[in-house]
């Protein structure tokens, strides 16, 4: 059989898909997005078309698809804040009063759960020491006369809770049995429990439990009076009250009953139970009066001034606020005055007046103060929920500014300059004010924070909150620097590093957004000064890490960050695990642009080294992989421009430094190959002595590096790659040596293969294919023959039969057939891009011995293929292999009788085993016909 003469260029043109350059508008992804855009727009238009009466919902939906952020602004337009709010009157709200009450109730339920959760753990810890007090109170419940007795039984908090639940049931039971007086008496007893604040940390839980009972009672009374209004004594229904009934619809008997309830509760001697029960049934005022019971709310707020216990007072205010939300949602006046009343009391706590009492109950002042926090949070939320600008200003004035003592004559003498705002109140004020408002008034608010310094809430949390808000909603231009200066004047004096950094962390963001680099450098300098003074602990480092990562995020280029003054010093402070994680962050941040700056490179190299050294046998696989990838990426990104020798030196350093990582070796080898090729390009194809030496150094470097790689597949691929680089640079002996090394390497593959056999085989076969295509241009050995390497390859396939087998082997042989065909051509399909390298077509032009050898080898390969086909066990597989071979034959050989019979046999074999519609079979048939092979198909 003779090789056919091939025109590779024509073949390429014929068989490749036609190409045309895409314009920007034809980009497939681009097209898709523009189509969907259009579709969206159409959808939106249609929506509006269908509902031209400004169907806001549809429009919003449309926006929501388009841009989720815009949807938010659509839902709450900022004008809302500026519009004077119309006071919702009782009449307008009453229609939905039931629903409204429900929504408030569900909100309350969530809040209750959070209280219970928040204080649950502290309750159980310390209650055990003070059980006796509660026990005494329980007994008092059972029998008021027992009070004086000394004996107490030990009960736990859980039992207390259970007892309360029982009481709740008893009340319900008594109520059902029409014993309303005893139900009332029981509920008074329950309310009285709240007078006991001797176990402060249990009080919030107690409050929740007791108010549950109170609410139950309130509901029972409401239902009863409603029933009374609807059904007369004889049990006849009079009229069902409309949903939005007023006191006019209620008959006198029901009103009398209602009044009686208020009378009965008004006669309770103790203040606290009286307040709670009145709040519980306050809703029933609706039966008596048309207007909302504003006066009652105000009076109850005033009455709470009589509660001297801070906890009791706070929670009573909370309970009033909770019911106020349902009954008087629009009015906040009573809440404001109530809160300021409470603050008078609270300031006494903060100043230590209650310390004796607090110590007696076994807690410290800070914990005691924290118990009040949820109350302030809720009340502040209620106050600011629906407020407009003007009201906000008022609230802020009331709680955020220095309180002139003159408002309360004789209240606290000796404090001439006024009272500072309480920090916990300031905190929740800030939290509840809209961000835009905070932004616009940032300077005044920061002054407010400055003046509030007490133990109710650490000041730095307030600054942190302020910082976070003004990052979100920047203050006006002219105020920006002033705010920063104002805040920093205070913060820079902080002694506690953690607190200091917590604020610095947030304000760095602010500076990056709003100020120039000068401020930032000053800030970093200040941070550094603090760090040198203080004790750097792990938590300090954690905040510092956040700061560094912000800087990294802000600057696009790492070099810029490093050039900022103080940054390097800051980085030097890290140690331990935090240091590693910061380094990782830094390495991650460079993954885009080239590293050219020598300082940055050196810096990164050191960090990479630290990371590398931190890995040991105990490190997790993920950790190793991540670090390796980061370092490899770094090595790839390093760029020395034209200074190739320097680059090679760097690669040598890398190899030395990151010896434990295969991937780094691979990267280094790739980089070095690239250097070799770049050197050739720079020499414009002809090496001088110097460049040749350099390239030699690169190749030698690789020759040394590659054997250190543990896994076989990358190793052989790299050998091949280096061989290619060497050939390009006209280093024939190196090329040969490298190819031999690769084959030897395969020869020595240990017999026990790992589990990834398939991948391994894939790797090997792709390598062999690549090798055979490379062999097209590798010139033959002058002494050992033109097919020295190829013979080595055959040896390998034969001796190490488990490396490659089955269809892969068939394909490889087909590939080799193509290689032989190419070599047999007068001109090779491609050449090495270096003029100094001659390939076989030049070397052996017209050499008959060479062509004889070629024909021998070809015959051998054909033989091998035929033998292989006969060995194929599986019929279908065999058929496919036959098709493979047939194709290869048709491609490589001239059509003659021999080929004809051979191909017919192969096709026959495929036809018997495969379905006729099989596309591969069909394509092969067509191809054979096109080649003029007129086989007989019966």
């Amino acid at each position, binding site marked *: 059989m003779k090789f056919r003469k091939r025109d590779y260029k024509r073949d390429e043109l014929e068989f490749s898909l036609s190409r045309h350059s895409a314009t920007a508008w034809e980009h497939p992804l681009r097209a898709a997005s523009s189509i969907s855009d259009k579709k969206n727009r159409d959808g939106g238009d249609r929506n509006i078309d269908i509902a031209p009466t400004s169907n806001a919902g549809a429009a919003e939906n449309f926006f929501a698809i388009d841009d989720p952020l815009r949807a938010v602004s659509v839902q709450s337009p900022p004008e809302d804040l500026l519009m004077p709010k119309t006071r919702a009157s009782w009449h307008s709200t009453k229609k939905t009063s039931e629903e409204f009450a429900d929504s408030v109730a569900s909100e309350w339920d969530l809040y209750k759960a959070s209280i219970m959760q928040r204080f649950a753990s502290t309750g159980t810890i310390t209650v055990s020491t003070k059980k006796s007090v509660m026990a005494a109170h329980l007994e008092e419940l059972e029998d008021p006369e027992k009070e004086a007795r000394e004996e107490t039984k030990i009960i736990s908090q859980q039992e207390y809770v259970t007892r309360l639940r029982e009481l709740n049931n008893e009340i319900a039971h008594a109520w059902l049995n029409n014993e309303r007086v005893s139900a009332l008496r029981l509920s008074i007893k329950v309310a009285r429990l709240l007078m006991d604040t001797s176990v402060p940390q249990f009080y919030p839980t107690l409050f929740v439990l007791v108010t549950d009972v109170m609410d139950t009672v309130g509901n029972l009374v409401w239902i009863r009076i409603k029933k009374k209004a609807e059904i007369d004594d004889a049990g006849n229904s009079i009229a069902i009250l409309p949903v939005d009934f007023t006191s006019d619809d209620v008959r006198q008997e029901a009103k009398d009953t209602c009044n009686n309830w208020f009378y009965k509760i008004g006669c309770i001697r103790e203040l606290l139970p*009286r307040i709670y029960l009145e709040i519980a049934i306050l809703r029933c005022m609706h039966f008596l009066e048309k207007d909302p019971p504003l006066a009652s709310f105000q009076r109850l707020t005033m009455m709470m001034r009589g509660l001297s216990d801070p906890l009791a007072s706070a929670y009573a205010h909370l309970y009033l606020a909770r019911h106020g939300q349902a009954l008087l949602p629009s009015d906040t006046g009573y809440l404001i005055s109530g809160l300021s009343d409470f603050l008078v009391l609270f300031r006494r706590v903060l100043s230590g007046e209650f310390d004796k009492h607090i110590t007696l109950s076994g807690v410290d002042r800070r914990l005691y103060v924290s118990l009040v926090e949820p109350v302030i949070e809720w009340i502040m939320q209620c106050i600011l929920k629906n407020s407009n600008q003007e009201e906000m200003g008022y609230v802020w004035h009331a709680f955020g500014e220095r309180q002139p003592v003159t408002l309360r004559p004789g209240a606290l003498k000796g404090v001439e300059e006024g009272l500072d705002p309480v920090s916990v109140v300031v905190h929740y004020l800030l939290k509840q004010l809209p961000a835009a408002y905070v932004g616009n008034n940032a300077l005044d608010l920061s002054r407010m924070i400055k003046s509030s310094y007490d133990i109710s809430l650490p000041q730095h949390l307030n600054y942190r909150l302020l910082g976070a808000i003004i990052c979100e909603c920047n203050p006006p231009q002219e105020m920006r620097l002033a705010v920063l200066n104002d805040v920093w004047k205070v913060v820079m004096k902080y002694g506690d590093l953690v607190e200091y950094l917590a604020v610095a962390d947030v304000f760095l963001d602010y500076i990056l957004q709003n100020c120039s680099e000068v401020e930032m450098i000053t800030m970093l300098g200040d941070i550094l000064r603090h760090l040198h003074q203080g004790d750097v602990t792990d938590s300090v480092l954690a905040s510092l890490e956040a700061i560094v990562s912000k800087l990294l995020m802000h600057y696009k280029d790492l070099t810029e960050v490093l050039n900022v003054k103080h940054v390097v010093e800051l980085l030097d402070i890290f140690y331990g695990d935090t240091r590693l994680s910061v380094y990782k962050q830094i390495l991650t941040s460079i993954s885009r642009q080239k590293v050219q700056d020598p300082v940055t490179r050196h810096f990164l190299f050191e960090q990479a080294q630290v990371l590398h050294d931190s890995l040991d046998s105990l490190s997790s696989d993920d950790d190793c992989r991540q670090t390796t990838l980061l370092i490899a990426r770094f090595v790839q990104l390093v760029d020395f421009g034209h200074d190739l020798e320097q680059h090679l030196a760097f690669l040598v350093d890398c190899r030395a430094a990151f010896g434990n990582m295969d991937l780094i070796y691979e990267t280094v080898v790739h980089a070095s190959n690239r250097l070799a090729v770049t050197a050739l390009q720079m020499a414009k194809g002809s090496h001088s002595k110097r460049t040749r030496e350099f390239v030699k150094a690169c190749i030698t470097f690789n020759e040394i590096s590659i054997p250190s790689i543990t896994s076989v597949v990358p190793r052989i691929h790299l050998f091949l790659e280096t061989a290619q680089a060497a050939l390009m640079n006209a280093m024939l002996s190196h090329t040969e040596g490298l190819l031999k090394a690769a084959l030897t390497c395969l020869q020595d593959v240990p017999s026990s293969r790992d589990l990834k056999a398939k991948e391994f085989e894939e790797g090997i076969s792709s390598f062999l294919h690549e090798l055979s295509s490379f062999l097209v241009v590798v010139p033959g050995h002058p002494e050992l023959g033109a097919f020295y390497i190829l013979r080595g390859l055959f040896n390998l396939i034969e001796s190490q039969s488990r490396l490659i087998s089955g269809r892969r082997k068939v394909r490889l042989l087909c590939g080799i057939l193509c290689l032989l065909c190419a070599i047999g051509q007068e001109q090779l399909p491609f050449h090495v891009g270096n003029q100094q390298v001659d390939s076989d077509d030049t070397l052996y032009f017209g050499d008959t011995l060479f062509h004889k050898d070629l024909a021998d080898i070809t015959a051998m390969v054909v033989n091998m293929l035929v033998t292989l086909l006969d060995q194929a066990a599986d019929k279908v597989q065999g058929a496919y292999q036959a098709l493979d071979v047939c194709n290869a034959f048709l491609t490589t050989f001239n059509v003659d009788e021999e080929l004809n019979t051979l191909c017919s046999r192969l096709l026959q074999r495929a036809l018997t085993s495969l379905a006729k519609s099989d596309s591969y079979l069909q394509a092969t048939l067509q191809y054979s016909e096109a080649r003029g092979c007129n086989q007989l198909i019966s």
Partner: protein
Amino acid sequence: MAVELKFSRVDRVYRPPDVVEGTVLIITPTSITHQGVRLIATGTIMLQLSARQVGVFEALYSSVKPIQLMNKTIDISPAGKISPGKTEFPFHIALEPSKGGLVDSLYESYHGAYVNIQYSVGVEISRGYLMRPISSTAEFIVEGQRVRVPRAHVAPEAVNFYITQDTQKHILAPVLRSGGFRITGRVATRCALSEPITGELTVDSSTVPIRSIDLQLLRVESVNAGEKMATETSEIQSTQVADGDICRGLTMPIYMVLPRLFTCPTLSAGAFSLEFELSIVVTFDVGLSKHAVHTEANASKQVMAYETLPLRLVRT
């Protein structure tokens, strides 16, 4: 068999010149022959002398005669027979003082310790000589007529008060006397019975911590016992205004709901008088234990400060 009196109003409150209406309800399994069903409406002032004022002996023996305000007898059914089952006799009684009585108008119902003003309706079914008459009584309440007086007329007469260590007539604990305190406020002393007592109270200063501030509603009942009046003051209701050592300078509201039946308009007749007072009681916390206060009455009084204001209750 049961005899029941039912009033037309659930709360049984009638104001002259209302007519008391109702029904007598007789439920009987057998038929009853009777000699007439008679209704008796009475109104009486019962007076009692305080043993402390006039001595035990006199209190027991010289009981003061009750004063009759109203006494009416109405026959609602002539002699006849009541058939088994439910029988109802409706009745109407005009509220008017008995003719030739001591008073020209009816006083309001009032339940006190030494003075009681009560109105009741009794029904009696007489059944001949040998049979026990069947009877039943029920109380109803008389309230003064609601005069529609314009608000301005009952403008609250606010009385200012102040309590210091110097206003106290009893012996104070030394620590109180030396430390000093000052509590000021005002109360509307002329108040309507249907409205709560209102006012305000402020602790201006007190060196000793306060344990509690309470309002006490007191009744002052005087009964004429021959040549002198036997006067007795007792507590009706106590309401706490402040619990514990409250903030100085914060004004707290005084707000006390008046209990019904136990109060009535301030009244002064020849044989007796009814007056009411409001007492503000400040209890200080001088470090005494609860037990000590309980056991030594004297000691407990020493740690308290009072201010008592006369009230003028009116029906509006």
